[in-house]
């Protein structure tokens, strides 16, 4: 045993008011929900989310008033809610600053931070309003200090090496904390992700502190028998938390499917702030992770459980 193992409550305490934060996963898959709920219970304020893409985790934190700045490219619940109603409401009320990039730009920003480079060069999204200098929202708010928030949203430049024309330089995405939600982590922090690993390796490496929530903590020696199957190296991970079903209501490859009914209910009920507060009272406040799972109940969880040969659930009803 090393000293990396902590509880869910301790993990949430590492994320301070005003921290910048990013997550594992993709839209409605492998989001660290047990910790997101704990942050809401602990009443975290002023978070700056920097995400390759957003999803239900963004919507919960934004709805609960934990977030001041959201820097990303997309938010919604896929089939189960077409856009982020909570973010939309707060943007309309000017309660939140949104900085828009494209998906590839966000990814290249994380890859730059993960490799210790100050920026990346790309040619994506040329000619769009993503590059409209009037729409530099962090600049308009006077927040570009050149420390954690880059001095510029973009820099345009001509390729100095091959003469390939107009390039866009995008700043590295430097974040304080990354929270990952994965299938397995070893006692020393080695991570094994099954299925698509999305942008998890870049996100984990870009952050100063990386916390890994796993379905199970397994012996390090077991993971090191087949290191080619591992995704993130032990020393890139600072803290580990064991948390079965920690991604619910999002899905986890090989373990359980997305709980579409839960997300649909959330989307439908949280178009207003009163609706959100009511939802949070029912599902988040006054609970801990175990009582939340008890409230969901075994029949619901068993229905979501993935078939081990197919890696997805054959029980969930997906259609109309």
């Amino acid at each position, binding site marked *: 045993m090393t000293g990396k193992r902590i509880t869910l409550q301790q993990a949430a305490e590492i994320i301070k008011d005003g921290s910048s934060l990013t997550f594992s*996963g*993709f*839209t*409605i*898959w492998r989001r660290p929900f047990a910790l997101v709920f704990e942050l809401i219970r602990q009443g975290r304020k002023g978070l700056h989310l920097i995400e*390759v*893409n957003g999803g239900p985790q963004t919507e919960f934190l934004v709805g609960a008033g934990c977030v001041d700045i959201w820097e990303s*490219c*997309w*938010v*919604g619940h*896929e*089939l189960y809610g*077409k*856009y*982020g109603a909570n973010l*939309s409401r707060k*943007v*309309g009320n000017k309660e939140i600053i949104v900085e*828009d990039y*494209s*998906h*590839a*730009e966000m*990814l290249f920003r994380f*890859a730059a931070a993960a490799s210790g480079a100050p920026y990346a060069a*790309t*040619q*994506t*999204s*040329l*000619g*769009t*309003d*993503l590059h*409209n*200098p009037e729409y530099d929202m962090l600049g308009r708010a006077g927040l570009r200090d050149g420390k954690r928030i880059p001095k510029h949203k973009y820099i*345009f430049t001509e390729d100095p090496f091959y003469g*390939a*024309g*107009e390039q866009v330089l995008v700043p590295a995405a430097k974040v304080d904390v990354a929270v990952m939600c994965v299938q397995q982590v070893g006692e020393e922090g080695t991570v094994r992700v099954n*299925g*698509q*690993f*999305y*942008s*998890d*390796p870049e996100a984990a490496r870009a952050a100063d502190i990386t916390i890994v929530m796993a379905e199970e903590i397994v012996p390090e020696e077991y993971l090191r028998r087949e290191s080619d199957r591992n995704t993130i190296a032990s020393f890139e991970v600072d803290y580990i938390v064991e948390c079965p079903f920690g991604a619910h209501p999002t*899905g986890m*490859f090989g373990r359980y499917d*997305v709980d*579409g009914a839960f997300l649909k209910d959330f989307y439908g009920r949280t178009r207003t702030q009163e609706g959100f507060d009511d939802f949070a009272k029912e599902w988040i406040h006054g609970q801990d992770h175990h009582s939340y799972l008890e409230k969901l109940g075994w029949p619901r969880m068993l229905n979501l459980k*993935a078939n081990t040969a*197919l*890696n*997805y659930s054959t029980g969930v*009803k*997906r*259609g*109309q």
Partner: protein
Amino acid sequence: MESNYATPEEYGLPDLLCCAASREVKDNEIVFAGTGLPMVAIMLAQKTHAPNLKLIFEAGTLDGRPPQIPTSVGDARCEMGASRSSGLYDAFSVAQRGYVDLGFLGGAEVDEYGNVNTTCIGNYLDPELRLTGSGGNPDINSFARRTVFIMVHEKRRFTEQVSYITSPGWRVKKWPEGSFVHRKELYGSAYRGGPSAVISTAGVFRFDDETGRIYLDTCHRGNSPEQIREMCQFDLDISRVSGETLPPTREELHFIHSVLDPEQIFIPKVKHKG
């Protein structure tokens, strides 16, 4: 055989859109597709006329052969039979490197040069409604040789000027001043093509090679060219209409409803009366 086309009672509008989109795919192409109807369309192409197409989902599966429809590109079902299961860095690098022939995308608004908005309705600095945001829409549209948009047709969506250019069309803004230039000029050596078709709930639209302006190609059953022109805020070119959008074949309907989407996740079945 002509008799193999379904009769109007046998299919619905979503079936027609799916088949029209599927026919945009050529065999052996590398195709990048988003969640929803685009997914059904390319998987239909894979089952019918384009068995060798290579399918990329932006969450990280390359050349997958899922037997059933995933509900998102991050879905566990995307990985079935894939050549490589990886992450976004691979998927977007493949696109920026120039491998992608065709991208399938959606949008909330489109203008006559194929600029598409998925970010907000109204003034960006004081929006009426914030939408999903860009996602990979501009990235795929920047790098694919052709992009096809599938959209709901409403007059307010086929607009003279989109609220926000999320995804680049044929005439785009050159920043920092924001003057309009041809896409070719701005993209330089990264230029590979651009929007090639819009399949709306009213018809199929294409773009003039020279000017990059949109024109009506085919009308879906029940819409006249004049009616469709009335459904656009800009002056739609209807001088090149080639006819009515071809209906689905019975074989295509079989694949959609019995093989690809039997759960009716994206494409509802037509309900027969009697």
